[in-house]
């Protein structure tokens, strides 16, 4: 082992020549990675973190991407002028990569074995037999059971988590010095994410492999990274040891980023700090400090470019800000506005606004509908779910993908016809015919801001349509007025009514989505993952908006999300679902402080907290195994197949939801025993 860093990058610069201009996606980026080190690159989408990774591997399309740098030294060799052939020898052998989308990163028509042995045969010149042997070892190492059998299978026979394990196995096949993992767990559920990250960390530290992890999740960074690069608009704005960055963030952007994330370990109710505005368009970035337009501390001096410089007293921690010491001192208070008061939202608990009793939503799943199509299975997306929502209350519905949380929302809205159970809204029984009457009182906000607005209609038309169709506001002028008010209310400008959705940013669109939900003055809004597609800084803006609206208008929310921290932040009451069933239900604070159900506990453990001090010291139970197929859920308790505490009884008895305390019900036969 030499002392020189494994990877040393100086002044890396990547430009994309697009049809409508040149985009500098990476600008003057320099950093180093030592052997066995775990480096995280964090930043919001479009800040250039993935491009940085791909440019190290020289995997960017040559036609459009131009990579320049002083040098990119890998193990002492400068890769800058390496030919394609030379690069090819390094790729997959000394340096390998794991991508974000496990579903599409494997070739669907080749067997896992084929794809796994490929680097072995190419780089290590093994014969088929040796390669297969090694492949089995690798699969074993990444925790794939029955590796021999799995080798001859195809990617579609693997779940997402399994595929990502295969990707890790491929990445590690030739025992590389460096693995670049580009958002490797973003597409995975939180419990699976924990498994994969643990695995990656564990293997890499055992094998002494350095890791560059690209992520937007600060929790993940806090949990695993040795070093952090924070990127903003193609540049590194702050870099240093993870502990230092989290303890003393010195760039206003880093501070904002850390403060705008809802935290599970903090109490509910306060407003989140928000960074105003949007990341800049890289086609025409602001001159000088690129954060300047959004920075509450900016001065005229910020029109000069601040270079990364070491903080006083630290050789590793450097910041690109003229006022870093000041920012560090003031901390999150630079973002606090006048409204930043802790103000609990009050709930009137007389009569429930929405009452859900034994809701069932089953889907018949048929393969390839043809003349002889037959239903080959039933998915119980929602099975026997009951809860109440009171006026002005926020009920959080949380769970991993496929747990049925979205189906609950759709069933309440009658977007899918519920298979069974009773729904009562405002003391009226909801069914196919009565739903039309309450439509105006019950609205929805969707996850994807890009597809929740009709791209062929202007914002004005979108907001006006329900008013017009239902004759709520009949006069054109009055409607015009009303649309303006709505836009103002959600923090947009009235002039935006003439814009088309594609002219707005994601956050703005989500505001329009909220305005549309508001325009009929509903009593309940079902929020289906309203912030999960947004960058953290924008996410905080939307969460604040939703809370403000609730304070002002007394709307109740059914808040569906997979992000435990967000749900914790906004909800009065939290429901935890797993495979169509409620595992635990109760007061938000209580559930997060004292989870009773083993699944809730595992879920909370799996979600990393963006603070290395807390994160690295907490005891975690990492769930084993995969989510069972919803077509064939375990008998008895649906969680029994993954539960550490499961006994034979659990596999037979379907647990009922039992009141554990006044504010908490749990569906576990062992609840007494465990707690």
């Amino acid at each position: 082992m030499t002392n020189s860093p494994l990877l040393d990058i100086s002044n890396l610069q990547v430009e994309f020549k697009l049809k409508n201009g040149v985009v500098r996606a990476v600008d003057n980026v320099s950093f180093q990675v030592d052997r066995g080190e775990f480096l995280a690159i964090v930043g919001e989408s479009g800040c250039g973190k993935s491009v940085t990774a791909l440019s190290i591997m020289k995997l960017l399309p040559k036609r459009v991407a131009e990579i320049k740098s002083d040098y990119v030294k890998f193990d002492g060799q400068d890769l800058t002028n390496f030919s394609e052939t030379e690069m090819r020898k390094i790729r997959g052998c000394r340096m390998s990569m794991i991508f974000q989308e496990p579903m599409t990163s494997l070739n669907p028509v080749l067997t896992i074995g084929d794809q796994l042995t490929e680097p072995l045969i190419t780089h290590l010149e093994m014969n088929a037999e040796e390669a297969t042997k090694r492949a089995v070892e690798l699969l074993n190492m990444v925790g794939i059971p029955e590796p021999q059998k799995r080798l001859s299978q195809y990617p579609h026979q693997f779940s997402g988590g399994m595929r990502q394990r295969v990707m890790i196995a491929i990445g590690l096949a030739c025992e590389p010095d460096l693995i670049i993992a580009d958002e490797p767990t973003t597409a995975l559920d939180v419990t699976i994410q924990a498994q994969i990250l643990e695995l990656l960390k564990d293997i890499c530290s055992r094998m002494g492999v350095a890791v560059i992890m690209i992520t937007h999740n600060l929790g993940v960074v806090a949990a695993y990274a040795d070093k952090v690069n924070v990127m903003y608009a193609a540049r590194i704005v702050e870099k240093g040891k993870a502990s230092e960055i989290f303890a003393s963030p010195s760039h206003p952007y880093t501070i904002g980023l850390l403060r705008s994330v809802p935290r599970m370990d903090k109490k509910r109710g306060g407003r989140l700090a928000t960074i105003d505005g949007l990341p800049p368009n890289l086609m025409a970035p602001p001159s000088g400090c690129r954060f300047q337009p959004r920075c509450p501390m900016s001065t005229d001096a910020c029109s000069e470019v601040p270079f990364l410089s070491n903080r006083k007293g630290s050789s590793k921690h450097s910041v690109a800000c003229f006022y870093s010491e000041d920012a560090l001192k003031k901390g999150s208070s630079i973002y606090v506005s006048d409204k930043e008061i802790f103000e609990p939202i009050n709930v009137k608990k007389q009569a429930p606004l929405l009452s859900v009793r034994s809701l069932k939503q089953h889907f018949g799943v048929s393969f390839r509908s043809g003349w002889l199509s037959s239903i080959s299975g039933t998915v119980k997306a929602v099975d026997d779910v009951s809860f109440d929502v009171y006026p002005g209350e926020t009920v959080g519905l949380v769970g991993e993908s496929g747990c049925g949380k979205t189906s609950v929302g759709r069933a309440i809205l009658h977007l899918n016809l519920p298979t069974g159970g009773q729904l009562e809204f405002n003391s009226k029984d909801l069914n196919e015919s009565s739903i039309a009457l309450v439509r105006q009182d019950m609205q929805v906000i969707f996850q994807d801001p890009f597809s929740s607005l009709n791209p062929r209609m202007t914002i004005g038309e979108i907001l006006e349509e329900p008013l017009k169709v239902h004759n709520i506001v009949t006069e054109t002028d009055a409607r015009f007025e009303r649309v303006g008010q709505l836009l103002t209310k959600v923090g947009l400008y009235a002039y935006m009514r003439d814009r088309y959705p594609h002219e707005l940013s994601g956050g703005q669109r989500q505001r329009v989505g909220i305005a549309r939900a508001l325009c009929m003055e509903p009593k309940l809004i079902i929020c289906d993952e309203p912030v999960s597609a947004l960058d953290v800084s924008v996410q905080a803006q939307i969460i604040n908006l939703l809370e403000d609206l609730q304070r002002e208008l007394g709307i109740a929310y059914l808040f569906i999300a997979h992000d435990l921290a967000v749900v914790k932040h906004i909800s009065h009451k939290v429901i935890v679902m797993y495979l169509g069933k409620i595992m635990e239900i109760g007061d938000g604070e209580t559930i997060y402080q004292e989870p009773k159900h083993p699944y809730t506990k595992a879920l909370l453990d799996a979600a990393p907290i963006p603070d290395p001090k807390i994160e690295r010291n907490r005891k975690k139970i990492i769930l084993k195994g995969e989510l069972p197929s919803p077509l064939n859920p375990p008998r008895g308790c649906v969680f029994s197949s993954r539960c550490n505490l499961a006994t034979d009884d659990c596999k037979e008895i379907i647990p009922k939801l039992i009141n554990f305390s006044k504010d908490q019900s749990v569906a576990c036969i062992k609840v007494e025993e465990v707690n």
Partner: protein
Amino acid sequence: MSETIPNQSDNAKRENIKPSRRNVFDFIRQQPLGSVGIVLIFVLMLGAIFAQQIAPFNPEDVDFEASPAFGGGAPSLAHPLGADAFGRDILSRLIYGARTALSIGFLSAFFGCSIGAIIGTSSAFFGGRVDLLVQRFIDLMLSFPIIVLAIIVIAIFPKTVIFGVDVNVIVAIAIPFIPKTARVIRSQALAVVTLPYVDAARTNGFSSVRIIFRHILPNVTAPFLILITAFIGQAILLEASLSYLGLGVVEPTPSWGLMLSGVNTDYYRTAPWMIIYPGLAVSIAVFSFNLFGDSLRDWLDPKLKL
């Protein structure tokens, strides 16, 4: 593994996001081949519209003395592209032929695609049995080659000419386009139907008709436009083929396909201009529509399979 629980795929979402800034200048800059196509189409359209002003002769004027049988017919000052078997000016017939080709092309592609699009979107929106039935019927229709279907339709309907346009041929060409469009549009609409803004429209309590026409149809215009341009080319080709077989446009209407058939073939070795120019006209017209259609697809929706 089952991923068939109804939920929207990422692809579906991505495909329906319209990138910003889409205008003619963008198109011209990004699609030079397509722009050439547009220019050619434009020229053809001008020719068709101002045929009366441009064409040196009436396309149906018979002048036996100018025909090759009387030693004439070769390209000359009077007849730049020569004269046909009846001594009719080929240039004039080509110009008027553009009228026939374009009107049949546009009308049949438009009607075929529109009906197909409505069937496709409705099928996707209503789903279930309706969808299944429509799909089966589409499959059925698709098991006949276009030209076979067109010839059968020609055989069924009597020849009807309205305002000088051969309705029979238009119907015959339009009908094979219906199932094709319905299939493509259905698959596109299927993605749109699951999109949140359609759900939002449903939660707003809008009627099915409103949702189909206001929220779904406008969002399948990209494939619709692509299909129409592709089909105009195909329609022109089909018209030429049918006319060549003697089943399409008939004398004395100037039609490129007709000019390649029947009498003129007698001359094609001795008076090759009779065959070369109409063939070129068909090829160029179809070529420009294909060029345009191709680029339009690359520009609007590169993944669309026709």
